[in-house]
């Protein structure tokens, strides 16, 4: 069974009858200019937008289902962390949603901060971080935990070049055990990793698989 199944998704006039499946071990890149319907599709997968037509299922459950979000990570293009509050506390509280103890969450946040050189230990707010460090913070849950499905909107935007290389190497490792869907205006370095690329907007779109 595919991890992500989209069937008959329509967002007229930009997207009509889009069908797509993403399996474990696959990275699918959705590419398109601003206004092509990428963000609407992303939000529909994240369960934040009702799709008027079509069906989106994650691990067999509807996208807005709480259980389907337990094994899925969503990285938004906009900030998911409150800019005025401690980055560290916010990250630990998010980790606690998936881990059994807050001690584990604390330890993982500390280890992540050291490994990626993001100075959040001094209780800094996201406002005090550089653009690249803020973006890394947005990607922290993807980096720290294991997921069945990872959906990211412009994941490389704002990252320093040396961090991009390191993050791409991590994605290669994560891909072995996860299904990944990335949204980007231009694929760039993500195209290297992508098993398939879907261009938006498109007319009647059938699933694009290399073997088809």
């Amino acid at each position, binding site marked *: 069974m595919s991890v992500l199944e989209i069937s008959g998704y329509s967002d007229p006039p930009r997207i009509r009858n889009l069908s797509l499946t993403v399996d474990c071990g696959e990275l699918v890149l959705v590419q398109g200019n601003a206004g092509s319907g990428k963000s609407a599709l992303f939000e529909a997968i994240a369960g934040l937008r009702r799709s008027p037509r079509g069906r989106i299922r994650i691990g067999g459950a509807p996208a*807005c289902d709480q259980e389907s979000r337990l094994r899925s990570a969503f990285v938004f293009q*906009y900030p998911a962390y409150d800019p005025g509050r401690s980055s560290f506390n916010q990250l630990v509280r998010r980790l606690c949603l998936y881990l059994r103890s807050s001690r584990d969450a604390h330890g993982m946040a500390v280890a992540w901060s050291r490994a990626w050189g993001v100075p959040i230990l001094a209780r800094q707010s996201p406002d005090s971080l550089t653009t690249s460090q803020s973006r890394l913070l947005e990607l922290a849950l993807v980096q720290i935990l294991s997921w069945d499905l990872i959906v990211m909107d412009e994941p490389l935007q704002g990252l320093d070049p040396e961090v991009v290389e390191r993050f791409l190497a991590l994605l290669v490792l994560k891909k072995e055990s996860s299904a990944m869907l990335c949204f980007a205006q231009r694929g760039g370095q993500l195209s290297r990793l992508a098993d398939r690329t879907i261009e938006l907007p498109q007319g009647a779109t059938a699933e694009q698989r290399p073997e088809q």
Partner: protein
Amino acid sequence: MRRPFFLVENLDALMRAKWLLPYLLVPPLLAVIAHLESSLVQGGVVAIYTHKARMTLTIWNGAILLGAISGVQASLYFSSLFRSDWLRASIALPLARCRAYWGALLAVLLVAMVAFTFTIGALVAALPRYGAYPWASVVLSTFALVTWVVCVSAFLGVIANALSSSIFILTMMTVSFVLASPSVIEYHYGGAGTPALALFLHALPPIGMSFFATLGDPWHYVYPMVLVGHSALAAVLGCFFFVRRSGAA
């Protein structure tokens, strides 16, 4: 740790100076009101109250001030929170999305209740004691006012902006007091009332009625109960609209 995620996050957000400092306005404003009131009494402009009425009025002054400040603060907080990127990204986390609404409401209510407890506690400590005083009735009635203000702000925060929400709450409080004044009630029940006035009297939250009821003897517990009912209805409606707007199927 999963259950109180939104409560903890909202409490963390509310522990900032911009949300807490306005509550410091209550003591000086209360002092100004008390000063004006005593000059009116001494000047003979207002009849001298009984001790009970004076105490009740002072506690209500504190609660009304706190209600007005909480109303504006809660309107600002909810309308910015419910449109924030942070909340939008957070409801993609594996939590029931109605928790995002109830967590925020409970956090604001907790902060308002702490401010309420300090205000009423300070007034009780400062006021002279004159025998038996119906503390329970006055505290319950004023507590209902603060609850109403926060719950209605949460509902309006989902559907309106901060300015219109604040204006609505302050207007409702003022009109409710004006229409509950003895002269208006006398005018209405004396047979001179119009259907429009009757509609207003029955549809408005009974904040003013609750105030005048605490001055009377016996106390009418119905008004604070109706106010709590209004609050619950507004809170549930707010949750319904929030969940609908956040894209749940």
